[in-house]
């Protein structure tokens, strides 16, 4: 499992934040780089990421007086940035649950799985080492609707657990699990030609 945002090393996490102009500038300069990178990972767009980071810092400055230092500054800002990114996705109506039923597994009338036998099974390392195949995999991941891709991203990459993802997205934990499972099942179908070695 990926790591949680690391407990921050900087001095700010050790001292209370008073929000003086000098401290505010330091907070921005110390954190803006990774926050931009995080927002860009979630939105896939640099200009939107800049908007989000601006919103995130405004939210952070507003929340400073209530920040109790229970987590590190970085963990706190990480969550604020994720929330601001999700808010942006909602505003853009990119988080609506779109159907990916065409990619879900198939069963016959006896509830037996329909699965063509696998004669070849490409190794993940071989796929990832091949530049063209790696690009193809990224392209297929990017075709997943945001409502599914974001769950994959938050859980598998940013290190949030199922309960935290549910809270962030304001959906139930079972819905998070359903989306995660469907996203992987859909990806399996999308990537079958690569995994079966039919695309080289």
């Amino acid at each position, binding site marked *: 499992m990926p790591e949680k945002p690391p407990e921050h090393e900087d001095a700010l996490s050790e001292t209370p934040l008073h929000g003086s102009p000098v401290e505010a500038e330091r907070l921005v300069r110390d954190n803006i780089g990774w926050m931009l990178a995080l927002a860009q990972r979630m939105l896939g767009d640099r200009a939107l990421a800049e908007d989000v980071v601006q919103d995130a810092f405004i939210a952070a400055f507003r929340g400073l007086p209530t920040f109790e230092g229970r987590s590190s500054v970085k963990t706190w800002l990480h969550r604020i940035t994720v929330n601001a990114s999700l808010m942006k996705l909602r505003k853009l109506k990119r988080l609506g649950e779109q159907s990916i039923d065409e990619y879900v597994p198939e069963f016959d009338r006896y509830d037996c799985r329909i699965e063509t036998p696998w004669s070849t099974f490409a190794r993940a390392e071989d796929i990832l080492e091949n530049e063209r195949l790696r690009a193809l*995999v990224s392209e297929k991941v990017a075709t997943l609707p945001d409502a599914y891709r974001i769950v994959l991203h938050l859980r598998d990459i940013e290190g949030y657990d199922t309960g935290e993802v549910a809270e962030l997205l304001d959906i139930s934990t079972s819905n998070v699990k359903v989306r995660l499972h469907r996203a992987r099942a859909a990806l399996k179908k999308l990537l079958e030609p690569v995994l079966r070695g039919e695309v080289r």
Partner: protein
Amino acid sequence: MNHQRKTGVRRWLKGFMLKRMHRMITCKEFEDFVLSYLDGELTNRQRSVFEWHLRICRECRDYLAAYQRVAELGRAVLPSPNEPVPEDVPEDLIKAILDARER
């Protein structure tokens, strides 16, 4: 035609066996447990039923192997927090943020 008929009978038999026999689940029921199995959230009994199905069902074995590989590929290609943070943070963005704070 004969082959199709044989396959049909085999699948009917498999479905019948999975539905009726003790400690068996159908492939459709198996599907509902995949994520919990991989997350280690099944009870001992559920895990043993799940793994028993895996032993006897070639289709679900193949499916699970492909599913796991895809999860691995997804993790590998999604942009990672370990990638270097870009250093070209625009000064005007920093200024806009600090100005907004003053307002």
